[in-house]
């Protein structure tokens, strides 16, 4: 007997069913009152007349796989019965959401695509309960989140917080360090060129013409001066490298603050760098005060260097201490990182740009 015949004989015995098709192609039939509890299915049935037979099965959204569909239908089957008390419903809900986190997330997604708001609320509450009070590592582990924020991004608030004088000092020290490194790089490059230029300098030519008197001394002096400078530069470089290595030792990777700051600002720094080069180059050819400043810095540098190292270690230790408290104190995050440029004024003093427009 066909279904139609049976319907004629005992209509009141036949329940009506709705046909549903999940994204994987499988089709099933569900009691009408259960399926109609989902607004999306309800809409399909009423507005579009779908779901009455196998050929016209309602295609469910992709996020609803058969496992999720069966869970959702269990939920609907219970809740669509009108006579249940609030207590019964609550206790069903509590038992219902006891599942592993992966399924909970899938269920939230599936319920959302079927517009079943009570179930979305229920699962959201459950997910919020899971997240509440946990540390970020725990949360990342539970939800398989990638730990893809750089240390600098995590610590970013430090750069923007200018309240704490120690942070301000450190920012300044880092800036100075970066500037010095850049300078030495450029000096090295320029010196290499300068050496060659000096070999054919006017002095030499003159001495050649005039004979080697005081000029040679002068030349020697200037040469030895350069040599000394080079040695000093190398010392400075190595000391700077050591400093950086020390920084490396700190697990928070404070060097990354420098490095990634530079890397992150590559595009704009490129622009800044060329102008820096220009400025520096000009200064060196114009007057030697700049180099003198560098020399003076050399003298102070070892002592200052130690101070910087100490500060850095202290700071890193503070950062490594209790994470939640730390986050409480520094709980501000910048919108976008404004690139901070450092370039030299004509008189060699440091000038700091907040953004490129101030150029």
């Amino acid at each position, binding site marked *: 007997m066909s279904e139609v015949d049976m319907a004629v004989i005992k209509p009141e015995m036949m329940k009506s069913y709705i046909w549903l098709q999940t994204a994987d192609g499988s089709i099933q039939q569900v009691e009408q009152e259960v399926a109609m509890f989902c607004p999306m299915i309800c809409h399909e049935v009423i507005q579009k007349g779908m779901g009455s037979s196998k050929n016209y099965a309602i295609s469910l959204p992709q996020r609803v796989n058969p496992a999720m569909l069966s869970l959702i239908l269990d939920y609907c089957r219970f809740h669509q019965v009108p006579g249940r008390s609030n207590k019964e419903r609550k206790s069903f809900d509590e038992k219902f959401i006891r599942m592993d*986190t992966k399924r909970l997330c899938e269920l939230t997604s599936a319920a959302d695509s079927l517009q079943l708001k009570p179930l979305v609320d229920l699962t959201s509450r459950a997910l919020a309960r899971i*997240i509440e009070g946990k540390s970020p590592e725990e949360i990342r582990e539970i*939800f*398989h989140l990638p*730990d893809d924020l750089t240390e600098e991004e995590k610590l970013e608030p430090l750069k923007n917080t200018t309240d704490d004088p120690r942070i301000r000092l450190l920012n300044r020290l880092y800036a100075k360090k970066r500037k010095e490194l850049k300078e030495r790089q450029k000096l090295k490059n320029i010196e290499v060129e300068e050496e060659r230029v000096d070999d054919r300098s006017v002095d030499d030519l003159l001495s050649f013409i005039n004979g080697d008197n005081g000029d040679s001394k002068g030349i020697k002096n200037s040469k030895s001066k350069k040599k000394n400078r080079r040695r000093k530069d190398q010392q400075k470089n190595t000391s700077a490298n050591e400093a950086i290595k020390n920084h490396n030792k700190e697990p928070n990777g404070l060097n990354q603050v420098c490095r990634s700051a530079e890397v992150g600002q590559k595009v704009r720094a490129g622009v800044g760098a060329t102008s820096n080069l220009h400025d520096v180059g000009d200064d060196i050819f114009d007057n030697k005060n700049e180099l003198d400043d560098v020399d003076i810095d050399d003298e102070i540098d070892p002592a200052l260097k130690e101070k910087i190292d100490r500060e850095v270690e202290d700071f890193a230790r503070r950062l490594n201490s209790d994470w939640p*408290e730390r986050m409480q104190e520094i*709980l501000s995050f910048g919108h976008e990182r404004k690139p901070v440029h450092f370039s030299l004024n004509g008189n060699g003093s440091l000038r700091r740009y907040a953004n490129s427009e101030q150029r």
Partner: protein
Amino acid sequence: MDDVMSRDLISDLPQSIIESILTRLPIRDAVRTSILSSKWRYKWTTLTQLVFDEKCVILSNDRCKVEDGLVNFITRTLFLHQGPIHKFQLTTTHLQCCPDIDQWLLFLSRNDIKELVLELGEGEWFRVPSCLFNCKKLTRLDLFRCEFDPPPSFKGFLCLKSLNLHQVLVSPEAIESLISGCPLLESLALSYFDSLALTIRAPNLKFLCLEGEFKDICLENTPLLVAMSVAMYMTDDIAEHFEQSSTCNFNRFLGGVPRLERLIGHIYFTKFLSIGDDLGRLPITYAHLKVVELNQVSFEDMKEILVVLHLITNSPNLRELQISGSSNTLAAIDAPDLDFWDDECPSNCTFKQLRVVRMTDMSGVPHEMEFIKFLLANSPALETMSISPCVYVMDGRLNMLIELLRFRRASAQAEILFIQD
């Protein structure tokens, strides 16, 4: 070790779900999610509901530190936030008068704030800045311990549906004009006001809650009122003021609320209603009134008893009645007007729908017992009558029980419960 291929479970859910989850977290945890991964960095910043309380900061004994921490946290959160803020709630005992709050309110007034709840601490009350009155989209306003002084040009919040002022310093004219200036107002709660004389004109008002020393209240235009709860504290001068007044309070208060469904009165409410001229024939019937709770009714004052009777006999659909007494037992044995119950009391009224009656703090004074007798005799549908004697009455309980046994009951299935402590 987790398998390397495990996919991110949650970050790709639709933003509406993420917000639904983040809204259910305490604000501190929600902001901390910005450190989880690059996708989560700014997910919290578009939340439209921000609820701050003292759990946002680390507790410590240093009050200044907590205050500063809370102020910093809120300021930075607002600064980082993107988009509209529909709800802002601050509950704290630590902040009172703090200039940062003014700035936050200014910020909120520019961000489409709809619900504002400000619960501040004791001490110097915060004076609400004028930018609050520019929040055109406000639908809910709750203020605790503030000074509220609308500028003369302020006409009202056109979208306001719920107003709750608790311990707020405001002039009576300002309150009246505020209430009249909010045409959509549905819920009004005023508490801890001193000597307030108030006329309420709110055509859409459904819920009313008043608590405080009110000199005079008149519900002039509240036709849609559904539920009200009133606690009237009375000082001596207010009582005097009442004695001299001749207008009928019952009519002024309950004369224009035909849709009333629940009425709860505390402390001196019944006394307040009893003052004034003779009640006479009340023109309206409370056809929807289902639940009445009157506390501290003095059954020695004939006028108060009349008020109660008047109310319940004009409520044909009353289902639940709860009355607590406040009689002075020492004076009660010899009660005047006892023959009222036999002579004047309306004998043909029946409480057809009355199912549950609770009489608490009963001292056993004659009028109380007569009232109970009256109810039992005229409630054919009664299911439960529970009586709790007042704690001070120890000896009179047996007498009460003996009398109760004699009373005729109109309802065959009525249970009488005598509850001892």
